[in-house]
């Protein structure tokens, strides 16, 4: 029983994380972990700047199909 609960919690945790990754909710956290954001030469973007820049890039190429 305890094991089943633990597995369910683990599954729910993974599902939640996957959902956040899929919809872009975790994009800024991922950016902060990336080597580009951690390199000294680059100025780190704020959450707002990152969000707007990311959208402008995404919607400048085909990203939705028929």
């Amino acid at each position, binding site marked *: 029983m305890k094991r089943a609960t633990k597995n369910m919690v683990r599954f729910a945790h*993974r599902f939640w*994380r*996957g*959902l*956040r*990754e*899929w*919809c*872009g*909710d975790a*994009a*800024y956290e*991922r*950016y*902060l*972990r*990336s*080597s*580009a*954001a951690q390199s000294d030469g680059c100025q780190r973007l*704020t*959450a*707002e700047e*990152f*969000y*707007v*820049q*990311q*959208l*402008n*890039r*995404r*919607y*400048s*190429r*085909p*990203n*939705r*199909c*028929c």
Partner: protein
Amino acid sequence: MVAVLGAGALGKIAFDRGESLNAMWFVIAAVCCYLVAYRLYSAFLAARLLALDDTRATPSERNDDGRDFVPTNKWVLFGHHFAAIAGPGPLVGPTLAAQFGYLPGTLWLIAGAAFAGCVQDFIILFCSIRRDGKSIGQMAREEVSKRGGFIAQLAVLAIMVILLGVVALVVVNALKSSPWATFTLAMTIPIALLVGLYLRFVRPGRVLEASLMGVGLIFFVVVAGQWVADSPSWAQVFTLGGVPLAFAIMVYAFAASALPVWLLLAPRDYLSAFIKAGAIFALAAGILFVRPHVLMPPLTRFIDGSGPVFAGKIFPFCFITIACGAISGFHSLISSGTTPKMILRESHARFIGYGAMLLESFVGVMAMVAACAMTPGVYFAINSPPSIVGATPDAAAATISGWGFPLTAQTMAGLAHAVGEQTLWNRAGGAPSLAVGMAQIFSNTIGGERLLSIWYHFAIMFEALFILTVLDAGTRVGRFMVQELGGRVWKPFARTGWMPSVLLSSAIIVGMWGYFLYQGVVDPLGGINSLWPLFGISNQLLAAVALVVATTILLKMGRTRWIWVTLLPMAWLVIITMTASYQKIFDTNPRIGFLAYANALAAQLAAGKIPAGKLVDTQRLIFNQRLDAAVTAVLALMVIVLIVEALVQWYAILSSSRRAPALHESPYVQTQWAPGYSGVAQGDD
């Protein structure tokens, strides 16, 4: 075991001639075929043809910048890729093709996906991964020829224009004279603006919470739409004809393209993605729960080309009507766009490229089931134009009953009342009939007859919402293409942030697809009859372009022995698109051939048979038919030129007397990731 079960189910749907067939046979046949295709054929492609190499660093590892190049878990990327490729096509195409009966469309959906669509998506994804995420146009330029690249770029713009015009027509036909549906869809705009402002200024980037809030509001406006429809004064405000709706959609798309992307376009896309995923899951669950009976016969009399929904024989028109769901050239843009920049390992390309397309094919099969589960007479009543079936309900019911599909005017009036519409006659485009099918499945699962109208308008909102998402995102991308092409003539025009250029290019692209939309709205044959085949031809021609590029790359890789993998689907696509193009231009039946229709109208005009009030409309109609013929001819010609270019390349590769052209792959770099790395950062798990 799975193969035997699949073969049995396929046999059942192919040879059963009973009164009706349970939809579960479709689900079993499709799922078993997909499992066998994935387990065997995609494994063969991965191991023998492409030799996927997990020791090779992918673009996301080499160029990881946390923005474009992001190493992504394969399940998450599968979701991204599927959300990108699955648009209205796999829902609308099979619904329209149901006029031939359930069998041809279902077989093409399953076989087309396994042997053509999935192959195209998988191989183009692989090719793009090996080239740092280059687009299909760039790969065509490098691997085929410069002219080939330019043709691919023009083909993409052409298909974009036709696609946007056609899907906008589907929305217009779904909203026409429906205050409930029009109100619901109109309200999604302020909801999207609200979500956009929240995501920009209140909690930047918190997509999940903002989207859930927006989805909740959308559910509320679906219900509130009934109050609007019941109010005589408000119902009048939201009851619009085809032409005003067409112009409203053009104005919306222009605004979405020119406004900052965070304000309207992106939040709509978030809302649409959540509702799309939810509705597709709900449809699958509903079919499994209700297990409806398919009432449409396996083959109808309309395989002879006399179909009321669109004219043309089963060959080639079934294969161009169902593009997305079987094979769609547009997917090659996604497979050579975002996905290759995010893939973690080469081996994931099999699951994402091949697997996501199988899932889209399954969506197409579900749409076919939903369309065929309604009474055939109702299906034809919704999708047939009055010029074919008759202008009055009684006349139309008599015509449809005469085809062997019993129907009364009272049945249609009762159904329209049950779903909260004024009428369901002449609602061509596939969306309303699919919505009726979905609503019947949903209401049999939850709520019964009482909730039929709510489910119908939920289904209409779901279809219209993500069609508009394709429309605004496509208009914006089309705007960039126009700016890029215009920049070759006058450099400042290419500056994407320069407002005069933004406004002018947005107006140009909206004007281009808006013209096709307008001609569809005013077409007496219903618009879909002319425009959907045109869209199917252009989409399949783009798929042929992608397969030409893939064949060239495989030949350069020395995979001559396995070249039939891409060559056969390419040859099939060239045969069906060229046959369909020829028939659409030159067929002597005015309902099929653009020129025959134009000539018939011109003859009536010359004989003085057109009333004075319709002279201008008729002249415009003649021009439109000739324009459609010219567009079809240009598209076909572009692909012929590209094939000739490719044949020269192939000869050079295969001929030992000449030096083989070089392969433009990125150099091999060994991965630094451990074999078990799955894209999960430390501390996440």
